[in-house]
């Protein structure tokens, strides 16, 4: 058991996890069956295969307030659908670059291969990621439709930054 699993005060990151049905989702179930306590910060969205993941989903998760996004798929060579995880990996590598350039810290976006038997890895990865993001702090993406007044009144860069801190 880690301290991360018990932390209830301070900033609680919100992490959206996309887990493939066959490996990682099952591993998360296994972690449950084995009563492995871990940080409560991850919410799992189940897809049949990590290959189903459209980068739009990841961005949408961030846009909707996620502080981090975790993708879990089968280990290379283990995909239930033969090669979906490779597609996920290709998209992930490209997307990671774009995310980086867009200023989203690397620790907020992670892909992990977690086999159905690796309940302990689910626990470890989630705890690690929660800790990492706790250190990074909340992700406040700039709302798309800022009340225009915030811009008009902007006098200094500091104020502009403050304006970005609003909630979408």
């Amino acid at each position, binding site marked *: 058991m880690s301290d991360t699993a018990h932390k*209830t005060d301070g900033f*609680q990151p919100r992490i959206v996890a996309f887990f493939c049905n066959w490996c990682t989702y099952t591993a998360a*179930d296994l972690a449950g069956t084995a009563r*492995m306590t871990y940080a409560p910060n991850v*919410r799992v969205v189940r897809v*049949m295969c990590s*290959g*189903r993941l459209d980068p739009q989903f990841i961005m*949408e998760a961030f846009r909707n307030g996620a502080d981090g996004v975790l993708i879990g798929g089968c280990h290379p060579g283990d995909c239930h659908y033969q*090669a979906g995880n490779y597609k996920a990996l290709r998209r992930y590598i490209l997307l990671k670059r774009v995310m980086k350039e867009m200023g989203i810290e690397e620790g907020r976006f992670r892909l992990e291969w977690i086999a159905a038997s690796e309940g302990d890895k689910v626990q470890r990865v989630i705890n690690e990621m929660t800790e990492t993001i706790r250190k990074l702090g909340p992700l406040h993406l700039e709302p798309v439709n800022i009340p225009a007044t915030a811009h008009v009144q902007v006098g200094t860069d500091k104020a502009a930054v403050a304006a970005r801190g609003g909630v979408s």
Partner: protein
Amino acid sequence: MSVPENRTNGTPKIGVYICHCGINIANKVNIKETVDFAAKLPYVTVAKEYKFMCSDPGQELIQQDIRAGLIDRVVVASCSPLMHEATFRNATGEGGANPFMFQMANIREHVSWVTFDKDAATVKAKALIAAAVHRVSLHRPLEQTRVPVHPDVLVVGGGIAGIHASLTLANAGKKVYLVEREPTIGGHMAKFDKTFPTLDCSACILTPKMSAVRAHPNITLWTYSEVVGVEGFVGNFKVKVRRKPRYVDEDLCVGCLECIEACIFKKGKFPDEFNQGLSQRKPIYIPFPQATPLVAVIDPETCAHFKTGKCKKPCADACQPGAVKFDQTEEIKEVAVGSVILATGFKAFDAARVGRYGYGKYPNIYTSLEIERLVNAAGPTGGELKMADGRKPKSVGIVHCVGSRDNNTNAYCSRVCCMYSLKLAHLIKERTEAEVYNFYIDMRTPGKGYEEFYERLLKENVHFIRGRVAEINDWAMIDEEKGHLIIRVEDTLIGRVRRVPVDMVVLSVGLEAQPDADAVRRLFNISCSHEGWFLERHPKLAPVSTFTEGIFLAGACQGPKDIPDCVAQAGAAAAEALALIDKGSVELEPNTAFVNEEVCAGCHTCLNVCPYGAISYIKEINKARVNGALCKGCGTCVAACPSGALQQNLFTDEQIMNEIKGVMNHV
């Protein structure tokens, strides 16, 4: 910006049912707060809680509300969908709605069981429920397709588990293909002398079953063969089997041994695999007298004809039926089966990996499997246990847990070693009257008659020292130790380090997954635990099923097991296969992909993305089209489709996007 198509028919009416799962969920998640929360979510018309939603009254709750017209979509917040999705879809269907107007929120495995703090658990449960509600509001009615199940079964591995499963199926009138890698079936059990705790002769109880396999009209036995390819899905597998050439025609060979007699090697020269290399065999051989099939095999690695090309082949001349055929070649057989039982067994731990036990360095240190052969009347010494110099050992140390319960090798308990060590202790004592020392960490004898057997051994004047052996070597501290192997161990019950001099050491090696288990599991598209054992679907409720429908497990390939457990599991696997066959058909998950042809631009992106070749390009209309029968529903093409023309049933972009919105907002 683009305007999303409105795909909901009318205003959804969603019922949310939150399960206590006894106290499993209710202890961690504040149910009342969660119900109140759910009731306020968009389109939710009913929000209820119940002690056990999966029970009949629980399901009835859903059905009543559907029948009363209160709801047309259902969210159940309870356990994992891998556990009860089917149950609740059925309930939804029984109530009169389409079974796919249902979504599950996993608030047990993903929330109550893994969260420490009660408030945090409640927050997380709410988020998952909101996600399910958002998602189900966009669900659409779907139809399942049914495909027939092929009644034949493939059994892989001809040890006791594979044999038992094959016979059970064959006796039920099903056709079985039994594929075994070695030249004979029988597996490890054929090598044992006696079985614990009854001490009945292993061969005596096994060989009748082996003969039955050979004789059964419903069993096609392919020894010296391996599965090399598997395609298809539950009910409809296509399997390729490679039959290695044994250079002896199975149909003609009568097992008379004349060929072996005639071989240019007058005596055995090559390590005999069946006897753990403790004796020698010729290049043409029959592994053991009760081998099934009783057909000779030529090992091309050692046969003079294959090595030099200069042999006069007396074996062929000696064979009256003319069964020896040097021109035999490998054969690939293709069969169609509806289900598969994997019974590929285990591999004994390599004792040389624990260097401090001196295996391979000092003489008179044997593994337990070697001792099985040495005490076996049909073994290389005719059942006499002798040391390298021919003397009978006066003292024997049996070291438990070699390669088990050790993070440096295998962390798990191999389950059978305590009992077989007791058996060997008994046999050694019986045959040699030596002092026998058992060195154990914990004595584990959970089984019918097992503890009684332990007690019997305690009374037989066998020494039991509780302590894991530290090292075995040959340096003597005092004269009495000279010429012996010294076992150094802490007697933990006394708290003192002891040096026990013995003549012979038995290393009770643990069980490991087969070295090619990983390749096999990939072949059959199943999972392995991190130790390498094939992973069952559920450790308690689906112990012989896998995550791939139609593939079942039997015996030690799933984890260390003794003979009674292997046989029981083989019977269970056979029963699962029978259930599938007798059902006659399987329903396929309707999560296939489909092309919205109106908007497909024919860009070809999806074609190569599909691993099953399920998408084809229709040139005449410049559109892609998904073959629903071939599509397995991974959705990879949907993610790749650049213009959103491809969608996946049950996993449309909108449904997933809505789930994301639900999981993030509202809490």
